[in-house]
């Protein structure tokens, strides 16, 4: 038996459970494709309480985060959020995170469930000498992601603040059904949506059920994986690890090389990527999976890191690391057969039709 989130009883009765990062998590409720499509067109909710949540506070908190993060943190406004990486001394990625400034001297970091222990041990070492402290609130809080084009309308019905005023990567603090919540307009699906974090764990189920009664469909980790691959987002453990640097992962936007200092900067200054993360859109529905080999003009050039069937594209899609000069058609070896695919930009979907930037009708 794995660890359980505050919403476990709901998942147990309504979903197919699976183990993820030591937790018993819902993999699907009604169907992975159906849930993924619903988030692209309507609104879905995900229990993301398994993710790590820590608060860094103290007069040096901003300075400390500028030192351990590749992105700029100390210039965030209150309730502003930012995607960042943490690197090791060699420039390899320790984790990818979202940092939200919640007070002048207090920041909330959300990081990957599989890295919780590694990260906290590392931070406790690095924080020495700074006027700052770290508090892991993962086990004393819950997190719900509400995602999809109709998420604002859904969440608005139980939120007093005007959510239409909240821009992407901004947030606020409010009460939802008497629970003290931090809400940010963020997510891991490519769609518009919000992430709700609260320490009032006894209210988790009440909020979850209210969102369902207002039209949100419970959605599992299976759909979450489809959605993040369609959007071109990397997953730690698949696309990211300590041997891969941010430029290879094509996360340059999250690295501010003009910062005077941060862990990994020196190594990154010298790095010249020879392989990069790419998308591959397959010409049929056969699914490339992690570890499958990628060929270019007959030569083995790389390995699939994630793959799935995309219900909006009606074909399979994947990510892989390949040498930087590779473009156009590749082949993926699937059960001894060579299946054709095309190197494709992220996201895989048409930005005019899907995603939070889509044209409003």
């Amino acid at each position, binding site marked *: 038996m794995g660890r359980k989130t505050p919403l476990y009883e709901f998942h147990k009765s309504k979903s*197919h459970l699976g183990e993820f990062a030591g937790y018993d998590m819902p*993999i*699907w409720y009604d*169907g*992975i*494709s159906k849930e993924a499509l619903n988030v692209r067109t309507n609104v879905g909710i995900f229990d993301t309480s398994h993710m790590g949540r820590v608060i860094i506070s103290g007069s040096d908190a901003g300075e400390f985060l500028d030192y351990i993060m590749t992105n700029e943190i100390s210039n965030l406004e209150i309730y502003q959020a930012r995607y960042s990486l943490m690197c090791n001394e060699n420039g390899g990625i320790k984790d990818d995170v979202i940092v939200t400034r919640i007070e002048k001297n207090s920041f909330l970091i959300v990081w990957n469930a599989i890295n919780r222990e590694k990260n906290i041990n590392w931070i406790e070492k690095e924080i020495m000498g700074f006027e700052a402290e770290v508090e892991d609130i993962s086990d004393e809080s819950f997190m719900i992601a509400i995602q999809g084009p109709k998420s604002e309308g859904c969440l608005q019905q139980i939120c007093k603040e005007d959510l239409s005023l909240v821009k992407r990567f901004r947030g606020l603090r409010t009460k939802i059904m008497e629970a003290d919540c931090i809400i940010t307009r963020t997510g891991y699906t490519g769609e518009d949506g919000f992430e709700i974090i609260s320490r009032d764990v006894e209210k988790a189920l009440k909020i979850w059920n209210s969102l369902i009664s207002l039209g949100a469909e419970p959605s599992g980790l*299976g759909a979450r994986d*489809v959605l993040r691959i369609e959007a071109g987002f990397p997953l730690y453990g698949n696309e990211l690890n300590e041997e891969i640097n941010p430029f290879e992962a094509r996360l340059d936007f999250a690295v501010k090389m003009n910062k005077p200092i941060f862990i990994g900067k020196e190594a990154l200054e010298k790095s010249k990527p020879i392989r990069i993360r790419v998308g591959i859109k397959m010409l*049929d*529905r*056969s*699914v490339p*999976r992690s570890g499958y080999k990628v060929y270019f003009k007959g030569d083995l050039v790389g390995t699939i890191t994630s793959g*799935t*069937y995309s219900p909006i594209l009606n074909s*399979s899609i994947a990510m892989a690391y390949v040498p930087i000069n590779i473009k156009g058609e590749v082949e993926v070896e699937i*059960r001894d057969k060579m299946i054709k695919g095309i190197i494709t930009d992220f996201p895989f979907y048409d930005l005019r039709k899907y995603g939070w930037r889509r044209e409003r009708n």
Partner: protein
Amino acid sequence: MNSTIKVGDFIIIEGLLYSKTHEWIAINENPARMGISDYAQKNLHDIVYVELPKIGSSFKKGSTICTLESIKAVAEVYAPVDCIVMEINSKLIDSPELINKNPYGEGWLVKVKVEGGTEDLMDAKAYAEFIKKL
């Protein structure tokens, strides 16, 4: 329509024979239709791709005759008897979800000429008992 047995959410059709690996075969038909059981499709779930055999190819009992893919997994379908493939359900190439929608009907996989014995297969009642214990 043959009568059905229900074990929990899973439907089992009388008149078919079943394998321990959850294939069914309509042994009274010639050629005999085969597919996967409701139990198998519900566990595999969300089938997105089907790899069907070539017509005319022969299979030993227990060898892989088709491969099914869901978003999360790859599953092999084993020949329940020694057989030769006479026909394939080519509708599944574009609509693999038919297996989830109707595993005993439109979601059949292949029609085969039976070449060997069926002694290891279960009838509907025995299969119902078998999946009750899983």
